[in-house]
């Protein structure tokens, strides 16, 4: 008995010691908001959320059968990540879609006007004129503004001049959305940012069913497809 106890002590004490050492090295606290600075020594890039990976058809079927709310697919090719987003809120014409990871995208008639939690977020846009042309499937020249936060937390405003043109008419059949749509092309230039070309597939009622939209240098081009309206 005595020996076993001694052996136990011999193995247990170092373990307690190790545990204590580990807790001291990583820091511990009863305060739920405590943050330990060593976290900052691990590069952010290593800790950043891994790409959400591919969304499988099964996942889409599951999501669509589980909710009657509008559902959108979002792909960020530059990051190799995809997400299924369900509409969680409406504010006038703006609809906010989100996933359980608390990443959200706000759209107006399917045009992305803001993102949150994706990192390098688009904060807001002045999209009125551009959206009007695209929804009406008309050609024209309009101005368009995107706003971002800089790493300094200052709002950066990028003003674009966009040329809009309708292209082919196509059939759209994605998820539960089936419609005829007109492809719209918006080519935008700015003295403050790189030029880009957005594509929108617009239904007869003026809803954007799918798009490839430029969301700034951090997110790059983002693909959106409405799976359920």
């Amino acid at each position, binding site marked *: 008995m005595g020996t076993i106890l001694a052996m136990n002590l011999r193995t247990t004490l170092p373990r307690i010691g190790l545990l204590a050492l580990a807790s001291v090295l990583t820091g511990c606290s009863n305060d739920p908001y405590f943050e330990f600075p060593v976290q900052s020594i691990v590069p952010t890039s290593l800790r950043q959320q891994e790409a959400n990976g591919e969304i499988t058809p099964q996942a889409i079927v599951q999501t669509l059968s589980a909710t009657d709310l509008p559902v959108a697919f979002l792909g960020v090719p530059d990051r190799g990540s995809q997400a299924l987003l369900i509409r969680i809120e409406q504010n006038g014409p703006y609809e906010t879609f989100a996933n359980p990871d608390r990443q959200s995208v706000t759209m107006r008639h399917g045009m992305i006007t803001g993102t*949150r*939690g994706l990192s*390098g977020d688009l904060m807001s846009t002045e999209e009125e004129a551009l959206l009007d042309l695209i929804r009406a499937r008309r050609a024209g020249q309009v101005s368009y503004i995107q706003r971002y936060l800089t790493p300094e937390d200052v709002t950066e405003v990028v003003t674009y001049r966009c040329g809009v043109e309708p292209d082919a008419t196509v059939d759209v059949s994605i998820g539960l959305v089936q419609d005829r749509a007109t492809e719209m092309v918006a080519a935008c230039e700015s003295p403050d940012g790189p030029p880009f070309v957005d594509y929108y597939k617009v239904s007869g009622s003026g809803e954007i069913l799918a798009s490839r939209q430029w969301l700034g240098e951090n997110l790059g081009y983002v693909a959106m497809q409405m799976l359920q309206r």
Partner: protein
Amino acid sequence: MAAVSSHRAKRVGALATAGAAFLLTSSAQSETIPSYNTYGSPGLIDMPTAEMAPDATIGLTYGRIGDSNRAAFSFQITPWLSGTFRYAGIENFDDPSSVDGVYYDRSFDVRVQLLRETRLRPAVAIGLQDFVGTGLYGGEYIVATKALAPGLRVTGGLGWGRLGSYNSFTTIGERSEVILGEGGVPTYDRWFRGDVGAFGGISWSPNDKLTFELEYSSDAYTLESARGGFEHKSPYSFGAQYRFDNDAQLGLYYAYGDTLGLQLTFPTNPKTSGIPGGIEVAGVPVKRRASGSASDLGWTADLEATERSIEQRMTTNLSREKLELVNVELRPRSATVWLRNPTYGAPAQAIGRTARVMSRTLPDSVEEFIIVPTENGIPMSAVTMKRSDLEALENDAAVEMLARTSITDAYGRGTPEDLVTFPRFNWVVAPYFDYSGFDPDMPLRIDVGARVAASYEIRRNVVLSGELRKRVIGNLDEISRESESLLPRVRTDYRLYADEGDPFIRYLTLELYGRPAPELYSRVSVGYLERMYAGVSGEVLWKPADSRLAFGAELNYVRRRAYDGLFGLEENVTVDPVSGIEREIPDVNGHVSGYYAFGNGFHGQVDVGRYLAGDYGATFTLTREFANGWSVGAFATFTDVTEEEFGEGSFDKGIMLTIPLSAGTSRPSRTLSRQTIRSLQRDGGARLDVSSRLYDQVRTWHEPDVSNTWGRFWR
């Protein structure tokens, strides 16, 4: 600056994520960062150029040529003004103050760009090198740099002092050789006087990564040749520089026809490093009320029950946003939320997230939202907005909401009670590190150990808190250098504290916070206030909520703590180890302070009063602050202590660097790493180090700071 210090600089407490943040946050810069020289400024190899780094660039450089080692910190203060602080160690240097043959020297440079480069005109800059103190590296220059072809840059300049010591072609006036004061004062009697030499060079970058450099130096390296093993065989040096993806630079040189050199620079920039907007999750969206629902006041029939259920829901919802509900008060048309923010470095983000939670929780008839942020139980301001504005402006530019938000004094708006029960107890066990720099015996000493900190909130505005530190490994206790002081040894006895205090109580205080009158804030701290002093500290701050200006007054009664850092107290008398003279530390010291936010990020502070050693004077501080929490500043203290009494350095001065934890994590945090770098700490102009001064706590929630971070309101 001061030649060889026989004293360590004051070690600075607090954890330092500084180094880590520096190495990790470098990111692509939109403007190109020029090549740095071995002195740590934009330049060729030893010679300066007229180039400026992008605004706000911080450069950390290590340069070595032959026997000279130079570590430098440079900051691009404005687009046309830069400053560099340097610590050099020259090996094999024959001087009485050399330690093991190494001569240590600190120096400070400034450079002003007079003309920016255009298509036809070169950039022109004027600079002072090592312009404070003994001026080992002292020299002045006017220099022009011009790109002749893509990647090909040519520099030519005129130098005085060191930079006019080789092959000079003329002489302007007479250059003083006298050291002013006890060192540490600007060498204005030398600037642009004496022999004038010409220097220049070419740099060629065939691509983004590589740069080749050739320089003709007008420095004769007279001192190094006379006292060290320096051979000046040629004025020409050449080398190559490689630029890594994170903009770090590595340069390798063949210098003076005789020796090899290298330069390593890590640039970072508070304006461009880090992930824009951070990586934290989205806040909840605004919930827009159905039209007409705002007139429904049915819920007011059972106000108390509604309030209770709202308290619960709001507590839960705010804790999901990592915020803490202190209390909520409901009226038919208005609601007040008292808030504690343990998470967000940007006050506007805490306010924005709270407002959105309110829009989702409060009855529809509530139109006016009042958010009262609290610090240590004290209301700091009242942020008032209209719910219909939140609904209408959620997808607009953030400034639209700012224009409709008012930030006013919260005096008299204290919460009647708290939802959390007191007392509250918090503790943390974590590692710490501490350092002491610039001691010639050992230029950098480091301690690493464990700290236990705890706080006990007895009532919402009465906090008992303390921290115990135990060294695990380190050499701070090995400081052996003693120097005479002609003042009471209020700081120069640090060695004894570092030696005997293990473990030691860093602080143990009882603090009482209050709001004595409108626009006034107060603090009383009793206990072990800092490592060397215990006592009572009282402070009052006047700060209108919308003002850039604030005034404060602080009065302290101190007792010297025992060297072992435990509970013992000593008499306020110190004995100088060299002269044996006893001197008395006065019991009372204190300051009146003025604070002013100039806008565009610059912030000034003046503290006038009596310092620890009983000297009277003023400290001037100028800081450039960034909305994301970074700041770089400098201070200087002038008191009635003469330069002779003060000793080496002549007066107290230093630079300050603050790095937010979020720079390393890209997640919101209120934790800041503050470092003060003093070239040396003497006893004159030394202030009591009270950790809980009011100004930063209060200003966070006032209009100028909230506006500065407003971009994050909807983040």
